[in-house]
């Protein structure tokens, strides 16, 4: 079964010419069509994908191939693509085709990937359940009455359902790791500045970071290696090379100190989630890792801090959507102010408007110091907590989310309860650190449980390496939701 193979296995088959890229691409397009009920894709580019696959086959025939030549992938619909429309899950951009490719899109194309399509997502990446998408919610393949998580919900559902071998995502407060946890995947949010943000539609620029949703740590290493690295087009890009795939995977766990923050292991977390995380830690201990207690005393301030900073930056970033240069334009505007106000009112959904309003509020005269400046100070305190914890350990571990995937519709009426989903993930974005979620078990309902690993700035190697060593001893990452094998 081609769709069950890892990136490495697919590469071997392609290079030995046991399968062609065209066959592989057709196989995945057939699966996307067959399982279109999941609503994981916003656009599928059959014609473009098959043309790309043919080209890849030519290169494979001439032995000119790289790590990913001929392998189909999908992009979260937040990455600009020249060939295909880029909607960001919004009515605002439902008719938008970008004049250029994002750096991530370009790099993966240069690595030989065949882009099959663009995946569904929460509108402008604002959500934790993929329910704010203008294109409808996405179903979790493990349990179709449940959410896949968000905002990279379409990428997570499609990789989990084996509709695509790997997909890109973005993470501003947990948007790669939380859906990875809910769908039983390995999801990496690299350090801030590792992966270029050029052509990635901005939500909160000091927090956004691109990454990939994959089925294993090995696949994660391959994708990260192809996507990451310095890009002169992104002013915050870091001038350091990405480690090789082997460097990312070959980690000796002996002596590695895993820090368990007391704040991440409390009663607010489901017992099944905590149980699976503890079992996973025992397996890592057997491989030589040491467990140490650490503390992140200001974690609780993470959510309020994040929900000031992220909306503030969003309100500024989203001011570019004015009905003039791109995106939706209202038909019923008589004046310039009308044009701005009506285009934005018609083009944005409710959650996006709510965040623009709260962001505008905290930045407005009289409230700036009390909210925005205060949040920036707490951001420093949170970042310092991590630095202190990393004096005692090499990797911080804990549950990715307090619970497994919740029901569709369960939290849509209460934005604050939705926000609390990011409680363990969003402090990582505030500090700009790398972090990975990997599957470590299933709960009583058969829903995946994710464990989060947080590393020092620029140390993705310890995260991917730890996850890979864990996956050599376990098979949680190979579990496939029933009906999709």
């Amino acid at each position, binding site marked *: 079964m081609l769709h069950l193979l890892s990136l490495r296995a697919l590469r071997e088959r392609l290079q030995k010419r046991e399968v062609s890229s065209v066959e592989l691409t057709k196989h995945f397009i057939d699966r996307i069509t067959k399982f279109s009920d999941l609503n994981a894709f916003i656009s599928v580019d059959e014609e473009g994908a098959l043309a790309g696959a043919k080209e890849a086959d030519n290169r494979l025939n001439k032995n000119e191939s790289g790590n990913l030549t001929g392998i189909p992938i999908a992009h979260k619909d937040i990455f600009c693509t020249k060939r295909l429309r880029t909607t960001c899950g919004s009515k605002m951009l439902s008719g*938008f085709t970008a*004049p250029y490719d994002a750096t991530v899109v370009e790099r993966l194309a240069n690595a030989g990937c065949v882009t099959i399509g663009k995946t569904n997502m929460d509108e402008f990446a604002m959500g934790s359940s993929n329910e704010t998408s203008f294109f409808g919610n996405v179903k979790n393949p493990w349990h179709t009455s449940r959410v896949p998580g968000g905002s990279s919900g379409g990428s997570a559902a499609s990789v989990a359902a084996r509709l695509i071998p790997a997909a890109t995502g973005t993470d501003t407060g947990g948007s790669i790791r939380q859906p990875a946890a809910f769908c039983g995947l390995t999801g990496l949010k690299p350090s*801030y*500045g590792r992966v270029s943000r050029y052509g990635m539609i901005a939500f909160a620029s*000091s*927090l956004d970071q691109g990454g990939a949703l994959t089925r294993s740590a090995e696949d994660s290493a391959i994708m990260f290696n192809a996507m990451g690295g310095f890009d*002169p087009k992104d002013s*915050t890009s*870091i001038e350091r090379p990405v480690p090789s795939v082997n460097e990312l995977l070959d980690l000796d766990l002996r002596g590695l100190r895993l820090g368990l923050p007391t704040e991440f292991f409390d009663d607010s977390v489901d017992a099944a989630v905590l149980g699976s995380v503890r079992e996973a830690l025992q397996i890592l201990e057997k491989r030589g890792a040491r467990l140490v207690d650490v503390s992140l005393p200001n974690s609780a*301030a993470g*959510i*309020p801090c994040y*929900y*000031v900073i992220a909306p503030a930056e969003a*309100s500024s970033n989203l*001011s570019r959507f*004015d009905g*003039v*240069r*791109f*995106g*939706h*334009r209202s038909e019923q*505007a*008589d004046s*310039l102010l*009308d*044009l*701005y*106000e*009506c285009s*934005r*009112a018609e083009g944005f959904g409710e959650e996006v*408007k*709510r965040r*623009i*309003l*709260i*962001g*505008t*509020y905290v930045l*407005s005269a009289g409230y700036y110091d009390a909210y925005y*400046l*205060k*949040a*920036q*100070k*707490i*951001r*420093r*305190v949170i*970042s310092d907590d991590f630095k202190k914890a990393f004096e005692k350990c090499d990797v911080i571990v804990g549950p990715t989310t307090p619970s497994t995937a919740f029901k569709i519709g369960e939290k849509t009426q*209460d*934005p*604050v309860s939705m*926000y609390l989903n990011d409680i363990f993930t969003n402090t990582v974005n*505030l*500090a*700009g650190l790398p972090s990975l979620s990997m599957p470590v078990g299933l709960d009583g309902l058969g829903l995946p449980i994710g464990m989060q690993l947080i590393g020092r*700035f620029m140390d993705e190697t310890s995260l991917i390496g730890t996850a890979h060593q864990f996956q050599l001893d376990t098979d949680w990452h190979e579990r496939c939701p029933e009906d999709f094998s």
Partner: protein
Amino acid sequence: MPISENDVTRVARLARLRITEAEIPQYQAGLDGILDLVTQLHESVTDDIEPMAHPQDISLRLRKDQVTEDDERDLFQECAPAVESGLYLVPRVIE
């Protein structure tokens, strides 16, 4: 409710978002809940803490002041809702 109808109207105007009378209560309730959450910030003591605007405490990279791109106006205007002779069209501003 700490957020008044006036607050919603004021902020919506600053954000250039048209909100109808009927929508005000819904946004008022939403903002109120979020503000309640973020007001927990005030419980933390942050005396003498330097605000952190960005995860990289370094100055941004500079480049030489050189033209690096060609003029691609036509390409960039292809996705615009209304253009004429290379100009973006908006409702009349000056009579």
